[in-house]
């Protein structure tokens, strides 16, 4: 007589069976079938539009681009009912890493790919969708709302050479201002950060010791400084700076409104021409015009410390890292649709959307190169 499975054994095997079924079913489900015809050759305008099946585009990374995506994603999602763009913060380092490993479809980053990353991942594109900038904020009770600071001074602050706010170098460029003998508390980003990348790019261009030492990157070898504090993300920088008098922090413009509301002061940063500026529409636009003339086809360009009397020194392309080869045609179409919409002045890059986060639109001279990159995306 064939032994039957005892009740308890059967119960014990049931979850395993359920699990196996779930695994098989989801593996089948992961390959979404698109009824949209697949384009194998790339015309100038590749197919975009609402795909026939629901596609979720996960984005994660830069906390500088995150507020912008928070503004435009809902608008896009309501326009294209089958595509959902789901942004997450986490820092540009996370954005690049997760785009490289395919954990997300789009990795947000203020930093372009490094030579090493590009050669290890030849299929990875960095496609900008806007121009952003970065402010330097400080929290010094009793100081004026806008103090003049240079990259050279900042490099020495973060290097531990300037330790008090009443240092003669700061006083020298701010005549008539008395600063307290408060300890300088530099705040840096703990996560791999595009903000760190653009900030340290400025420090590299203005201070030789910094250029020969930590240089620039999404994470650098910060000089040991026992007064230094760390923060996660741009909002975290605001939080830490708010809580620690004497702090100086680099904060992206997309959260600058919050920073100022929270009582942080904004520095007038010295540009290449020697003038001291805050980041606003005029100064950012001036920097963009001066620097985006010779953008390479791979779109990897630093816009830091550009020339021009009214050019703000820290501006950058806001990139989305996207894999050229998407897992299927529907996802590829969804990505292309989103990117085309995002850079279009009637789509995502409207004046209202951009000014909500203090961004500036991509210069028209760069748009063809961006579109060429978008057209490379296929599935």
């Amino acid at each position: 007589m064939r032994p039957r499975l005892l009740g308890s054994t059967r119960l014990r095997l049931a979850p395993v069976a359920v699990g196996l079924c779930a695994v098989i079913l989801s593996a089948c489900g992961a390959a979404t079938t698109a009824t949209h015809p697949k384009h194998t050759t790339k015309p100038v305008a590749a197919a975009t539009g609402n795909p026939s099946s629901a596609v979720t585009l996960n984005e994660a990374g830069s906390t500088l681009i995150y507020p912008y995506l928070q503004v435009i994603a809902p608008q896009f999602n309501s326009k294209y009912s089958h595509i959902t763009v789901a942004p997450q913060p986490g820092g540009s380092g996370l954005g690049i890493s997760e785009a490289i490993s395919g954990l997300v479809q789009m990795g947000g980053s203020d930093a372009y790919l490094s030579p090493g990353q590009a050669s290890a991942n030849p299929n990875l594109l960095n496609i900008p969708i806007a121009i952003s900038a970065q402010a330097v904020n400080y929290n010094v009770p009793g100081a004026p709302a806008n103090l003049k600071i240079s990259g050279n001074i900042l490099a020495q602050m973060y290097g531990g050479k300037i330790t008090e706010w009443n240092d003669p170098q700061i006083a020298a460029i701010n005549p008539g201002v008395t600063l307290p003998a408060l300890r300088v508390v530099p705040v840096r980003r703990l996560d791999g950060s595009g903000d760190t990348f653009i900030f340290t790019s400025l420090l590299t261009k203005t201070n030789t010791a910094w250029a020969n030492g930590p240089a620039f990157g999404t994470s650098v070898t910060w000089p040991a400084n026992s007064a230094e504090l760390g923060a996660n993300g741009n909002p975290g920088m605001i939080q830490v700076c708010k809580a620690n008098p004497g702090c100086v922090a680099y904060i992206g413009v997309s959260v600058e409104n919050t920073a100022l509301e929270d009582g942080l002061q904004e520095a007038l940063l010295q540009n290449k021409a020697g003038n001291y500026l805050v980041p606003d529409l005029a100064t950012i636009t001036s920097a963009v015009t001066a620097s985006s003339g010779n953008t390479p086809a791979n779109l990897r360009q630093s816009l830091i410390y550009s020339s021009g009397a009214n050019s703000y020194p820290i501006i950058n392309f806001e990139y989305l890292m996207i894999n050229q080869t998407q897992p299927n045609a529907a996802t590829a179409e969804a990505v292309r649709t989103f990117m085309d919409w995002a850079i279009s002045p009637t789509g995502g890059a409207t004046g209202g959307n951009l000014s909500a986060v203090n961004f500036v639109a991509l210069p028209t001279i760069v748009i063809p190169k961006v579109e060429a990159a978008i057209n490379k995306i296929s599935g």
Partner: protein
Amino acid sequence: MREILRRARDTMFWGLCLLALALVIAPSIAIIASLLQQSWPALNLNLFTNTTATNGLQNAILGSLLLMAGILVVAGPVGIAGGIYLAEFAPPARAGILRLGYETLAGIPSIIIGFVGYIVLAQELHWGFSLLAAILALSAIVLPYVVKTTEVALLQVPATLRDGAIALGLPRVTTLRRALLPPAIPAIASGVVVALAIAVGETAPLLYTVGFTSQDPTLNLFQHPIGYLTYVVYLNATLPTKLEHEVAGAAGLLILVMLLALIGLGRLVARRAARYAAQLPS
């Protein structure tokens, strides 16, 4: 005189001990109070109808519940089966080794588990952010508790029940099913409850196996991140605005509510176990 000194020392010692007890009780109350205080303005229905993209918690709550269900389905049976083996079938030497194995596993830092999950499951096996990877990682963390409580529960079944089964010449499996497991089930259930309580509070392994998203969770096992409550507490605590702190507090409070519910459930089940054990001939 000596008597007074002795009494004084007695009072002082117990005063210090009671102070120590207060020092244990105070933080729990303080944490609960601060969670309530931080989250109070945000405690409304919006938490359940909005996702984290709009300062709600819907996706996080559903995600945490989904993870708990996954633990129940995976770690529950495997742990119980392992515990039964250790208590009933394993020769002493082998049982000792396996016991050492799970006790040591219980001591492994959760980030190590998250690290291996990230490298092996999410990347080398190309599972991406996957529910299955998260469940496996959480299982690695909670299995020791399930195995241990099952083993202990079976060891505490009165010897008379075993003797009766042997006297009847029952096969081992029937002994288990009819005589040993029924009285042990309440204690085993409380072990599973502990596993769920620990799973709902984990963050580090989940960060690296299932990521986070503001979308509601799906049942897709692979290539889909999901949200969960602990991440919201982690992220929002570092954000500057008051509303974000309130949402973090609310998430923490919800985790605590789930925890208290699980502790209460565990106690209820343990009480049933005691009542059942009292009925058995001993």
